């Protein structure tokens, strides 16, 4: 690689090439990926795309990438992947094939790249010719006054494939999001609370506030605390009804306290 000035010593690139490359870089956002850039570079060879020198093109591209890096312009990964591949292709094109080497020949790879460029150019050309055609609503026109002669009404339901796909996507998205709905984690049921309190009232020999019975971890978020508190409140009411605990409250909104009963 060291014997290749175009790649290793960009400072030796003629000024006009360098300016051209910089102009390209300034415009780098305007390119739709490496193939687009390669097609643009190939135009400077001013030959039929079928006779293009892929070796020269590879060098131009590598100079471009080098320049971009020296100007500290961040190139997207696919530009760098293409650069690596072209560097590989270039070395393969320059060196005689090693005996017994597997895989496609460098010429085949180069020919395919040339084909890709020609095909892209052809499609662009086709697109331009398509858009240059006479178009409905611009160059020729539909009947401006489609007639509806009768007042007979037939309701015709319609839906497009897009509607259908969106509806389905919506249903499926709803499904996908179901596991993320956190409500189960924050809901403490009365049954759970009742089970828990049954085990705990044995320790409630003296007055203790209801909140002190809340399970660990249920006091952290307001949502969880509300749910657990409500469940435990309902549970102690149930226990009071069964005569197992006594409840008291100093005044409205004061803490609710409870004590085991039956001594």
């Amino acid at each position, binding site marked *: 690689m060291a014997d290749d000035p175009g790649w290793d010593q960009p400072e030796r690139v003629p000024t006009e090439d360098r300016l051209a490359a910089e102009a390209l870089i300034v415009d780098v956002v305007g390119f739709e990926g490496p193939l687009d850039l390669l097609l643009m570079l190939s135009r400077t060879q001013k030959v039929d795309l079928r006779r293009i020198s892929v070796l020269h093109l590879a060098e131009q591209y590598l100079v471009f990438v080098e320049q971009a890096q020296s100007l500290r312009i961040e190139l997207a990964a696919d530009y760098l992947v293409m650069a690596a591949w072209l560097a590989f292709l270039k070395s393969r094109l320059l060196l005689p094939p090693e005996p017994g080497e597997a895989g496609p020949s460098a010429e085949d790879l180069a020919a395919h790249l040339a084909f890709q460029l020609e095909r892209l150019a052809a499609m662009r050309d086709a697109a331009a010719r398509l858009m240059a055609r006479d178009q409905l609503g611009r160059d020729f026109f539909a009947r401006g006054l489609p007639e509806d002669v009768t007042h007979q009404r037939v309701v015709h*339901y*319609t*839906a497009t494939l897009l*509607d259908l796909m969106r509806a*389905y996507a919506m*249903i499926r998205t709803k499904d996908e999001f179901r596991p993320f709905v956190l409500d189960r984690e924050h809901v403490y049921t009365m049954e759970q609370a009742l089970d828990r309190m049954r085990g705990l009232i044995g320790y409630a020999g003296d007055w203790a506030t209801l909140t002190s019975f809340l399970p660990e971890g249920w006091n952290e978020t307001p949502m969880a605390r*509300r749910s657990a508190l409500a469940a435990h409140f309902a549970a102690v009411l149930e226990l009071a009804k069964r005569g197992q605990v006594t409840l008291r409250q100093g005044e409205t909104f004061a803490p609710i306290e409870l004590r085991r009963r039956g001594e």
Partner: protein
Amino acid sequence: MEETDSLFDAPPMGDQERMVEAILFAMADPVTLAELTARLPHGSDPAEALVHLARRYEGRGVNLVKVGDAYVMRTAADLGHLMRRETVETRKLSRAAIETLAIVAYHQPVTRAEIEEIRGVAVSRGTVDQLLELDWIRLGRRRMTPGRPVTFVVTEAFLDHFGLESARDLPGLKELRAAGLLDNRPAPGLAVPDDDEALTGQSELFED
């Protein structure tokens, strides 16, 4: 056309007639003589062109008709019956119907219970009836499970309407995602409401 280029020569009457014909065809409303004059090349005589055009369409399936001081092309009165079927009112399918239809298309053959399970809501009788009536779904084979429920499948008419060659051509979830159709997250208040509501309900009961 060369004549138009020279300063004062209007196009030949034959061309003027073509122009008036095209204008009357494309306009959504009757066109007045003044409007025609404004649209036609300088020096044209739309009044004369209209006379030629009226003669040309005499006895045809479409006639040139004068409405007030404007002109319009109208179907010949004796052919109105041909158009009778055309006056259809187009309505969008309801969301319930389109969802049900989508589920049948993607999961066919599918039972009503399965549709309800996937949608998460009951499927009304009317929805299924409507899709049957549209001939977009039909009854498939009965499922060989207890109760032997009927299944639904989509019809040829469905494939035809949606421009599909077969139901297998419907894009899969991965493709829907790739097309950007799957990442419109449900609008707030759509998937979350159960959750929200549960909490609101609770706080109302217990926090005050």
